[in-house]
C-alpha cells in the first residue's frame, strides 16, 4: 500500500491491521513521553487547500509523535495566490524532499491526481464530498474500543449524507467491518443512487432510536450546499436534530458520535454533545493514534512479508 486515497482501497484485513496498530500507538500516546523514534528522518508535508482544525492538527501531532519532520503548507500565504497551479505547487513541495503528503482539497479526486504526479506517498485528508478515509478509521477505532467489535452493531448516520465525505467513508468502513448502517435524512439530502449502497434509509429518526448502538450525527454543511435544499432550518432541527428528548429514547449502552466541527443547537443539542455517552472527544484523541498508524504503515515495514 503506497497511498491511502479512499476507504475502498482497504479490505477488512487491512482495516483491522491498521486499527490494531492504532491501538499500539494509543498506548504510546498514554506514556509520560508520548513519542517513539519510528519515523526518524522521514518528512511529512501537510497540504490543506481547504480549512481544517482537528484533521490538520491531528496529522501534525501524529507525525511529531513518530519523530518525523513536518512541512506545513498554507494556501493563503503561498504562491497559489500568485496563480501557481496545484501541480506546480505539489512538485515544488516534493522537490524539497518529502516522503509523504497529506492532502485536503475541495475538489473530488484532487489527492488522487496529486498521487499520480508525485513519487511519494499521499494520504487523502478529505476531497470535496468524496472521501475522508482517516476519519472513517478513527471512527471505527472509537467504536471498536467501546464495543470490542463492529460486527452486528446497528449504526445510524444522520444528516446531510449527500454532501458528506465522512458519511461515504464511514459507510464503507462500518459495513466492511460487519455493522449494519441506516442513513437518516430528508430525501433531498440522501445521495443519488443510494439504492446501490449496502445500507437502509429512512426519514423517520424517532422510529429507529430504540434499536441503535451508535447514532452518528453529521454537520449541516451550509458551505457545501445543505442550505438550498433545506426548506427551513428549524424544521430540519425538529425532525433530525439530536436533542435531549431523542437522546433519552436511545438504549442505555448506545453512544453518540459527531466528526466535528459541531453546530451546537442544530444537529446536536449542547448537553447531548457533552454527555458521558458522547464519544466526540474520544474521536479526537483516537484520531492521533489512527493517523500514526496510517503514516507508519505507508512508510515503514515495507520489507518482504
Amino acid at each position, binding site marked *: 500500500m503506497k497511498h491511502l486515497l479512499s476507504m475502498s482501497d482497504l479490505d477488512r484485513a487491512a482495516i483491522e491491521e491498521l486499527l*490494531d*496498530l492504532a491501538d*499500539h500507538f494509543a498506548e504510546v500516546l498514554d*506514556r509520560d*513521553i508520548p*513519542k517513539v523514534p*519510528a519515523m526518524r528522518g522521514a518528512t511529512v508535508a501537510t497540504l490543506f487547500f481547504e480549512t481544517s482544525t482537528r484533521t490538520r492538527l491531528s496529522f501534525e501531532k501524529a507525525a511529531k509523535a513518530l519523530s518525523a519532520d513536518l512541512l506545513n503548507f498554507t494556501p493563503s500565504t503561498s504562491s497559489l495566490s500568485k496563480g501557481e497551479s496545484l501541480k506546480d505547487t505539489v512538485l515544488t513541495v516534493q522537490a524539497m524532499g518529502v516522503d509523504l503528503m497529506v492532502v485536503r482539497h475541495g475538489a473530488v479526486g484532487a489527492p488522487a491526481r496529486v498521487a499520480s504526479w508525485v513519487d511519494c506517498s499521499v494520504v487523502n485528508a478529505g476531497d470535496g464530498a468524496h472521501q475522508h478515509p482517516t476519519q472513517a478509521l478513527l471512527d471505527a477505532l472509537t467504536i471498536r474500543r467501546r464495543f470490542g467489535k463492529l460486527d452486528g452493531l446497528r449504526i445510524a448516520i444522520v444528516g446531510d449524507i449527500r454532501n458528506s465525505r465522512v458519511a461515504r467513508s464511514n459507510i464503507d468502513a462500518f459495513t466492511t467491518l460487519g455493522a449494519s448502517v441506516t442513513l437518516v435524512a430528508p430525501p433531498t439530502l440522501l445521495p443519488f443512487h443510494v439504492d446501490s449502497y449496502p445500507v437502509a434509509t429512512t426519514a423517520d429518526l424517532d422510529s429507529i432510536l430504540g434499536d441503535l448502538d451508535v447514532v452518528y450525527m453529521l454537520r449541516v454543511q451550509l458551505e457545501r450546499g445543505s442550505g438550498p435544499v433545506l426548506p427551513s432550518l428549524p424544521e430540519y432541527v425538529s425532525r433530525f436534530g439530536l436533542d435531549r428528548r431523542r437522546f433519552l429514547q436511545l438504549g442505555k449502552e448506545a453512544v453518540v458520535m459527531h466528526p466535528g466541527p459541531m453546530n451546537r443547537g442544530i444537529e446536536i443539542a449542547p448537553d447531548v454533545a457533552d454527555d458521558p455517552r458522547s464519544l466526540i472527544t474520544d474521536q479526537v484523541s483516537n484520531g492521533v493514534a489512527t493517523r500514526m498508524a496510517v503514516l507508519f*504503515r505507508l512508510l*515503514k515495514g*515495507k520489507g518482504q512479508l
Partner: protein
Amino acid sequence: MIQTTPVQVMDGADVRRAIRRIAHEICERHHGAEHLVLVGIHTRGVPIAEEIARAISEFEDTHVPVGELDVGFYRDDLDHRPTTRLGRTLLPVDVTEETVILVDDVLYTGRTIRAALDAISDLGRPATVELAVLIDRGHRQLPIRADFVGKNLPTSIEERVTVRVENVDKEQGVWIERPRS
C-alpha cells in the same frame, strides 16, 4: 539456501535448568531480589522473564514484577524488514530508580537490545539496566554484552537458532539449523 534438519542443542529440561541458574545468579549478584524488575522483550523474552520470576519466588520470599516490552517502534531496520506482529508494552511498576533486567531469548547482533535500551529510557530512568538471555550466539554489531547467559552457543552467521518455549510454542528447547554447503 537449503537448510538441513534442525539439530536440538537444549531440550525442555535443559532450558528449565538454565533459567533456574540465571534466577540464582541474579539473586546472588543483587543479594536478594529487592528493587528488581524483569522486563521481557517480545515475543519469547516475556515467558522466559516470567519463568525467572517464578523461580526467584521459590527461593527468595519476594515477588519480582515482570513487564513486557515491544521494541518494534525503536528498531533501526524498519526500512528493511516487514512490520511483524507487535506485542504490548506494559510495565507493572515505575522503573525509575529500580534495577531493570531485560530478558530475551537470543542475543545476536545486539540491535534489539539497543532498541530496548532506548525504549526503556523513554519509560523511566532505572538505576541500572542489566541483560539476561537464554542463548548468546555471538556476532555482535554493537558494544553490548549480557550479564546473565543460559548457554553460549558458538554459531556461524549462516546458521539459524530457534528457541521455543512452552507458553508460546507448546514445546520447549533450542535448535540450530546449518545450511547445506
